[in-house]
C-alpha cells in the first residue's frame, strides 16, 4: 500500500507539472481553509515577516465567507449526468428554492459517516436532498434527482476546488498547499474523509486541525497575549466545540477538548421554523401542518426567513417575520422579540454547558483560572449565548475576535508554521477521543486516552492463545463508552502468517499511531527470529486509496477539457458584453444613424449573433459550436458599427455646412 501511495504521488506530481508548464515554479504559499458546515472561508499569510498578517481571501463576489453549498443543474446536461453544471456558494444558495433536491448543504454532517449512523438517519428525514447507502462500504452518499451519486467528500471537494480557484485568482499564483479545519470532535473517519476531499480538489492537505485550536492560534498569535489559559467556545452552523488551551511563549498546548457534533445554528433555525408554522396554522385553521412541511419550497422560504430573524435579533430587541404568499395565498407576519427567541432556544443553549464543564474537568482547571474566553462561530453573536458564557466562566468573553473569520486565519497561521514562514510558534494539539481495542465479551479497552498530545505512538504486545495459531484479529475503536458497540469502529486489523509456535510464545507488536492530523494508523510486526512483518490498516473511511486515485485521474483527465470549456465561456462572455454595448449605442443614436445604408444589415447581424450566444449558453458542452467564429464575427461587427458611426458623423457635419 505504501508503494502504491508513492507511485500515485509521483504520477500526480508529473501531471501537475505538465499542466502548469507556463508557471513552472510551484508556490510554497499555504492557504488556511475553514470548511464550515454552513459557511467556509479562506485565509493566507500576507507578509512572512509579520506573523499577525493573516488575511481573509475574498471570493469572486467580494464576500469574505462563502456558503458551504454545492448544487447540480440537472437541466444543463440531460443526457450525460457526469457533466452537469455545478454551482457553488452564493450562486448555489440563490437557486436553492427552485432546485432543493439537487442542492447539497450541510454535507459536513455526513462526511465520513456510515449510512446506518443514527445522525445520518435523522438527517434523511429533514434534508430535501436524497441520502443513499454506498453498497461497497456502507457509507452515506448523496444522490441527485437524476441519479448521479456522489460521496460527501466529493461534494466537499467541489467546494474546496472553488475556494482554491478563488485563492489563485486573488493571489495571482498557483495554490496547492492547504491546512483544513474540522470540528474538534471529528473522529478518524471524518478527518480522513475531509483530507480526501482536499485531495480530490487538487490540494496537498498538510494538516487537519481542530477549529477551536485554529481560533486560539489566531487570537494568541499577538505577542501581547501569548501567555495564559484560553477557552474557545465555538458554536457554528452545525457543530459545537469547546477547547481549553495553554499558551506559553509561543507554544499553544491544547489541554482538553469536548463538544457536540450535532448542535449548531441550524438547530436554532429549526426551532424558529416550528414556531412560525405553529403561529401560521393557528391563524389559518384550514391548513394542516403536514401540508406545509411536505412543501419543500415553502419550507425553504421559512428557513431563510427564520435565519434572517435570528440574525436581526442579535442587533435589535424586536423584529417582524414577514413572508407574503406562504401557502395558498396566505400571508405571514409574526412578531418576535429577543426574549421570546431566548426562551424558545434555551434548551439548545443549555446543551452547550455539559461539554464545557467536562472540558474544564479534563484539563483539571477551575472556571476562574481561565484568562480569556474567545467566541467562534456565527451563533455566538446571539446575546443570550454571550450571557450564558459569561455566567459559565465568570467573565465577559473577548469580543475583539471576528467569529466568522478567526478559524480560517488560524488555519493560515498553522500553514505558516508548517511551511516555515512563521517561526517561534508551535501548536500542540490533542486527540479528542479515546482509542482502544476490543477485548473479550465486547469490552472496550482504552489504549490512548483522549486529550493525549499528538503525534503519539503506543505499542501493545499480543500473543496467541492456541498452539500453532497463525493469525490474530484486532478491532480498533474510538469513543468514550465502556462497550465497543457504542463506539466507532476505526479499523479491523487481521494479521496472518504468524510462524506456528506453541501458544504464548509469538510476540506480535501492534503499534497504534495517531498523527498530528488526528488520523490513526495501526501496524503490526511479529518478531520471531528477528524478522519484522508489517501490515498497515486501511482506515474505514468513505473512499479507499484506489477510489481516490481513480477520482484524481479522472479529475486530471478532465482538467484539460474543463480549461477548454472555461476558455470558451470567457470568449462568449466577452462577445456578449461587446454585443450589449453595441446594442445600447444603436438604441441611443438610432435617429442619427438609421438613415445609413449599412444600418439595417448591422441590426440583423446583431440579432443573429445574439441568437448564437444564446444558443451557446444553452449548450455549453456542445463542442461543435464555433466559439472562435462567434468572437471573430463580434469583432468584425464592432468594426462595422464604428465605421457606421464615423460615416454618420461626417454626414451630419456636411448637413451643417
Amino acid at each position, binding site marked *: 500500500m505504501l508503494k502504491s501511495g508513492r507511485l500515485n504521488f509521483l504520477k500526480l506530481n508529473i501531471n501537475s507539472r505538465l499542466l502548469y508548464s507556463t508557471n513552472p515554479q510551484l508556490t510554497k504559499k499555504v492557504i488556511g481553509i475553514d470548511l464550515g458546515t454552513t459557511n467556509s472561508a479562506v485565509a493566507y499569510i500576507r507578509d512572512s515577516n509579520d506573523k499577525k498578517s493573516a488575511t481573509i481571501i475574498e471570493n469572486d463576489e467580494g464576500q469574505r465567507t462563502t456558503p458551504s453549498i454545492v448544487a447540480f443543474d440537472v437541466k444543463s446536461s440531460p443526457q450525460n449526468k457526469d457533466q452537469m453544471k455545478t454551482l457553488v456558494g452564493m450562486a448555489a444558495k440563490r437557486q436553492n428554492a427552485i432546485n432543493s433536491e439537487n442542492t447539497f448543504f450541510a454535507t459536513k454532517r455526513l462526511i465520513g459517516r456510515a449510512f446506518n449512523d443514527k445522525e445520518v438517519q435523522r438527517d434523511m428525514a429533514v434534508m430535501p436532498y436524497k441520502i443513499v447507502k454506498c453498497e461497497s462500504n456502507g457509507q452515506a452518499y448523496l444522490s441527485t434527482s437524476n441519479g448521479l451519486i456522489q460521496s460527501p467528500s466529493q461534494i466537499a471537494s467541489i467546494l474546496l476546488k472553488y475556494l482554491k480557484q478563488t485563492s489563485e485568482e486573488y493571489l495571482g499564483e498557483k495554490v496547492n498547499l492547504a491546512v483544513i479545519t474540522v470540528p474538534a470532535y471529528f473522529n478518524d473517519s471524518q478527518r480522513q474523509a475531509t483530507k480526501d476531499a482536499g485531495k480530490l480538489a487538487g490540494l496537498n492537505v498538510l494538516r487537519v486541525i481542530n477549529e477551536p485550536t485554529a481560533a486560539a492560534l489566531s487570537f494568541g498569535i499577538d505577542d501581547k497575549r501569548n501567555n495564559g489559559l484560553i477557552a474557545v467556545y465555538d458554536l457554528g452552523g452545525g457543530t459545537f466545540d469547546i477547547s481549553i488551551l495553554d499558551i*506559553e511563549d509561543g507554544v499553544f498546548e491544547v489541554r482538553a477538548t469536548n463538544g457536540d457534533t450535532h448542535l449548531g445554528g441550524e438547530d436554532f433555525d429549526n426551532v424558529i421554523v416550528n414556531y412560525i408554522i405553529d403561529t401560521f396554522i393557528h391563524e389559518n385553521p384550514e391548513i394542516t401542518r403536514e401540508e406545509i412541511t411536505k412543501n419543500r419550497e415553502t419550507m425553504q422560504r421559512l428557513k431563510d426567513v427564520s435565519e434572517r430573524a435570528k440574525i436581526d435579533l442579535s442587533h435589535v430587541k424586536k423584529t417582524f417575520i414577514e413572508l407574503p404568499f406562504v401557502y395558498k395565498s396566505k400571508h405571514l407576519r409574526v412578531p418576535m422579540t429577543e426574549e421570546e427567541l431566548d426562551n424558545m432556544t434555551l434548551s439548545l443553549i443549555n446543551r452547550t454547558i455539559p461539554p464545557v464543564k467536562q472540558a474544564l474537568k479534563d484539563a483539571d482547571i477551575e472556571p476562574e483560572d481561565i484568562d480569556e474566553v474567545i467566541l467562534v462561530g456565527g451563533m455566538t453573536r446571539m446575546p443570550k449565548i454571550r450571557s450564558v458564557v459569561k455566567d459559565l466562566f465568570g467573565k465577559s468573553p473577548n469580543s475583539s475576535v471576528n467569529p466568522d473569520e478567526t478559524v480560517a486565519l488560524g488555519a493560515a497561521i498553522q500553514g505558516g508554521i*508548517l511551511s516555515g514562514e512563521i517561526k517561534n510558534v508551535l501548536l*500542540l494539539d490533542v486527540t479528542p477521543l479515546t482509542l482502544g481495542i476490543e477485548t473479550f465479551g465486547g469490552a472496550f479497552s482504552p489504549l490512548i486516552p483522549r486529550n493525549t*498530545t499528538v*503525534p503519539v505512538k503506543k505499542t501493545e504486545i499480543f500473543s496467541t492463545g492456541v498452539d500453532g495459531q497463525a493469525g490474530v484479529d484486532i478491532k480498533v475503536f474510538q469513543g468514550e463508552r465502556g462497550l465497543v458497540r457504542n463506539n466507532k469502529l476505526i479499523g479491523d486489523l487481521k494479521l496472518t502468517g504468524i510462524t506456528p509456535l506453541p501458544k504464548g510464545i509469538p510476540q506480535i507488536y501492534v503499534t497504534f499511531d495517531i498523527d498530528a492530523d488526528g488520523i490513526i494508523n495501526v501496524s503490526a510486526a511479529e518478531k520471531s527470529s528477528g524478522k519484522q512483518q508489517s501490515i498497515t490498516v486501511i482506515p474505514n473511511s468513505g473512499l479507499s486509496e484506489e477510489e481516490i486515485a481513480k477520482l484524481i485521474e479522472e479529475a486530471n483527465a478532465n482538467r484539460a477539457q474543463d480549461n477548454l470549456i472555461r476558455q470558451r465561456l470567457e470568449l462568449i462572455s466577452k462577445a456578449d458584453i461587446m454585443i450589449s454595448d453595441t446594442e445600447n449605442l444603436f438604441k441611443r443614436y438610432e435617429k442619427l444613424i438609421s438613415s445609413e445604408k449599412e444600418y439595417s444589415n448591422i441590426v440583423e447581424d446583431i440579432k443573429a449573433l445574439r441568437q448564437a450566444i444564446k444558443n451557446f449558453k444553452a449548450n455549453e458542452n456542445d463542442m461543435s459550436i464555433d466559439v472562435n467564429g462567434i468572437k471573430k464575427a463580434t469583432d468584425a461587427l464592432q468594426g462595422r458599427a464604428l465605421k457606421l458611426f464615423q460615416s454618420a458623423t461626417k454626414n451630419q457635419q456636411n448637413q451643417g455646412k
Partner: protein
Amino acid sequence: MNGYWKPALVVLGLVSLSYAFTTIETEIFQLQNEISTKYGPDMNFYKFLKLPKLQNSSTKEITKNLRKLSKKYHPDKNPKYRKLYERLNLATQILSNSSNRKIYDYYLQNGFPNYDFHKGGFYFSRMKPKTWFLLAFIWIVVNIGQYIISIIQYRSQRSRIENFISQCKQQDDTNGLGVKQLTFKQHEKDEGKSLVVRFSDVYVVEPDGSETLISPDTLDKPSVKNCLFWRIPASVWNMTFGKSVGSAGKEEIITDSKKYDGNQTKKGNKVKKGSAKKGQKKMELPNGKVIYSRK
C-alpha cells in the same frame, strides 16, 4: 502420593503470576530498552527529557519541560524528529502520572528486566527484589499443603490398623471373655509371631515375653506445629530421617493389610482342610495364613 501435586501446582501458579508484568510495566520496559540501546546503558527518562533537576523534578516541571522541548523537536518544526518526539511524549506521559512514576522509579533503582524472545519477553537476569516475600509466601502455602496431606495420611493409617484389629478379633472364639492365643505368619515357612487376644485387646508377644498393645491410638496426630517446626534448617535432616523411619514402619502394616484383603475368597476351603487334622485346632486367616491354637 497424588496429594503432593496440589502444592506444586499452587507454587507454579504463584511463580507464573509473579512474572506476568502489567501493561504499563511492559511499556516502561520497552521505552527504557529503546533509549538505553540508542543512547547508552546510563540513560534514563529523566536524562532523556533533559530535566534540570532530574529525579527531583515536580510533575508540573516535567509537563512544562515537554513544551520547551517541543519548540525544538516537534515534527512540525523538523520532520526528522518524529520518532524522537514520540518517545519524549511517551516518557513525559509516564512521569506525569504519579503512580506510573513510582513504578518507573522502583525499577530504576532495582534494575530493569532484559529482553529475550525465546524466554517469552522481558525477564530478570537476577532475583527480583520482591522474591523473598514471594518465597516466604510459597513456603507458607507448602506447609499448609503438607499439613493437609498429613491429616489425610493419618486417617488412612488409622483405618488400616483398626481393620487389622477387627480381623484378629474374628478369630477369638471366647467372644472377648477370655484369653486366646494366635500365631501370625507372613507365609507358611515363617516362624510366625505370637498374638494374644485378652479381653478384646490385641497384643504382640515380644521375644522377651512382654506384650505390646496394638492400637490406632499409638499414632502421632498431625498438627500445625509439626509443619512449622519443619522450617528450622537445623532440624530438616533429622525430621526427614525420622519421618523416613516412621514411614518404613507404617509401610509394613500397609503391606499386611493389602495381603489380607487380597485373599478373602480362599477362607472357606482352607478352614475345612484344617479341621480334618486331629489333636490340634487350625484356623485360616482370610489372606491364606494359618493360626494354630496352643494347648
